[in-house]
């Protein structure tokens, strides 16, 4: 099953929230949507869910538009977490499961499975407001996975979780991907996207400024990082032609270069000062790309 977003534009009055967005996600694929706040991610998700109608373009799931008839196949984790604070965890999950077309017995069985998997079976009869933020977050995630959706839309799934729980959640999401679900998720955490997604988009002000597979995006960026660790002062190396940016660290410095040849130049020069302890040419991180692209847009 494929999710296709074809040249979608959404305007609110004079304001263009999403401008000519194109995304295609195949079955068993995970797609990362990156963007600063207000970039149009939530609007995009709402359009996919059919809560908003695009002004131009079309969104198709499996060749058809998404409506309430398909809602049992969709799992949605909104950015602003939403649960009834006064309702018990189990009642809440049964209610939301029923709304996604489950029967009570199935829902109960799935609740047991997920609460055990997330290591929180003791909260089954507790009210949501009595749980810690991280545990509420887990319940929220369970609510979006309970009915075994084929299309998962996760808005910032990892925010507010500690590293142990992030790993727990990642493995759950990866299971869904391996079972053939189509997954679209947004995050501020570049490392998560880098780790999980084959393909990604970076949005800013409604524009899709970067798009494609992780490898292509990195190659297309055209810049690499050179990391040198040394006991000597490397500040002057920042002046070498071809170095676009330098970040000093305690142990040495990281240089952003535009051509691989510059790396050799840097190595030769660094060795002039004295012995070095470490030299590495790194691929640019998604973080670098994001800052360079979005930062430029902001400026």
């Amino acid at each position, binding site marked *: 099953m494929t999710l296709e977003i074809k040249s979608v534009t*959404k305007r*609110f009055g004079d304001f263009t929230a999403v401008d000519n967005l194109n995304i295609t996600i195949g079955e068993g694929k995970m797609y990362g949507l990156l963007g600063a706040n207000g970039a149009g991610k939530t609007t995009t998700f*709402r359009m996919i*869910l059919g*809560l*908003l*109608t695009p*002004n131009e373009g079309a969104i198709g799931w499996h060749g058809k538009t998404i409506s*309430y008839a398909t*809602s*049992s196949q*969709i799992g*949605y984790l*909104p950015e*602003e*977490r*939403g*649960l*009834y*604070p*006064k*309702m018990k965890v189990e009642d809440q999950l049964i*209610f*939301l499961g*029923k*709304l*996604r*077309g489950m029967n009570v017995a199935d829902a109960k069985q799935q609740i047991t499975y997920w609460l055990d998997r997330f290591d929180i079976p003791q909260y089954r009869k507790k009210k949501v407001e009595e749980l810690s933020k991280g545990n509420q977050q887990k319940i929220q995630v369970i*609510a979006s996975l309970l009915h075994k959706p084929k299309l998962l839309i996760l808005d910032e799934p990892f925010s507010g979780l500690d590293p142990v729980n992030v790993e727990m959640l990642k493995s759950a999401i990866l299971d869904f991907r391996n079972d053939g679900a189509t997954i679209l998720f947004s995050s501020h955490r570049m490392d998560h996207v880098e780790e999980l997604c084959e393909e990604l988009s970076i949005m800013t002000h409604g524009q899709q400024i970067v798009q494609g597979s992780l490898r292509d995006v990195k190659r297309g960026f055209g810049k690499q990082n050179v990391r040198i660790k040394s006991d000597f002062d490397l500040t002057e190396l920042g002046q070498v032609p071809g170095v676009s940016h330098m970040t000093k660290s305690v142990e040495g410095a990281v240089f952003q270069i535009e051509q691989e040849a510059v790396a050799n130049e840097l190595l030769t020069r660094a060795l002039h000062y004295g012995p070095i302890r470490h030299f590495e040419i790194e691929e640019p991180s998604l973080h670098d790309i994001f800052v360079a692209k979005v930062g430029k847009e902001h400026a």
Partner: protein
Amino acid sequence: MRDFWIIVQQTFMSKVKTKPFIITSIVMILAVFVMANLSKIVDTFSNMGGDTANELVVVMADDTLYQTLVEQVKDKDIEIKRSEKSNEALIKEVKDEKIEAFATITVDENDMIAVTYQTNKMMDDNAVVLEEALNVIQTAKQTEKLSLTPAEVQTLFTPIAFDEKNISTSVKSDEELGQASVLVYILTFLIYMTVIMYSGMIMTDVANEKSSRVMEILISSVSPVKHMFAKVFGMGLLGMMQMSVLGIAAYIAFTTNKSVGTIGELFKFDNVSPMTLVYCVIFFILGYFLYAMLAALLGSIISRTEDASQMMMPMTILIVIAFIITMSGLGNPELAYIKWASYFPFFTPLVMFLRVGLLDLPVWEPLLAIAIMVVTIGLLGWIGARVYRGGVLMYGPSRSLKDIKKAIQLGKE
């Protein structure tokens, strides 16, 4: 349709189980039982007060008059105590709250009695008893002087035979009217209360779902319009259940209680036409839906529960005006402004019910009002659904009615 009922069930169950709902229901049932047993309770309390003798201090010169007075009030719950103290001393005693009141009784040369009654109470029953007793004594004395026989005295005091009958075509029979006005009074109050209570509950519920952001999840699986109608319907079921429980409680309270006394007489509705009861149910349900739709609509454009009371204001004002008009019309339901008000849909459930209950109206009048209400409810549902669609996606400090326009705009998108 399945998700509609899931939301209805959730709305209903989550409210039924809450403490405030259970407590309000219990308090209401208790209130009904207290009312049914009011005369008993009042008796119990006045007996308790009966331990302290009800004394009345009198200052009077005439010994025979004193004897006659004591004789006259001997079956009454009052004890005459003669005092020789001065006026000033007694005033001081009243002010110091040693005694409650005292009467200075004088008799002039024509045997006419004059009383100065000085008391610290707003309403003193003893004064009435004393006045009555002295009146009897004076009449007896004066008629004796005129040498009239008791039979002659009797004829003197017999009132004329005065029989009032209403022959207006639209006014009901006296018995029916009396019972109907009690019924109208109670039911108007009930409609007024439930409408305020339940529409308030709908509004805070919707606002709650928005502020806790559950709404986003809900409307991604159920259409906002369906959600709104399910909410209104579920809360309506809750209301009907609470009213039925209350009705059953009232029935038990008044039928099991043999000594209901005067209050029981008030609650006899056997002369009320069954149509009045049918109209009552109709107006109750329609009134609920009308205000509930409005509440859901307004609830959808606010995003915090704190703003709910502000949004309740216009609704509360409407229903309070309807209530005031009804109460003012209880004495004279045929006034023109009441007739006109009864067709205004937001007033209809109270005002038209008043007219239907107290007057013999041609059938088309209530039917027209019902039709206007149904159309208004439909219209409100139609507008409400539009506002709701956008409103539930709208967050921020929205609490003015301007936001309705914004919500409709967003709903279209």
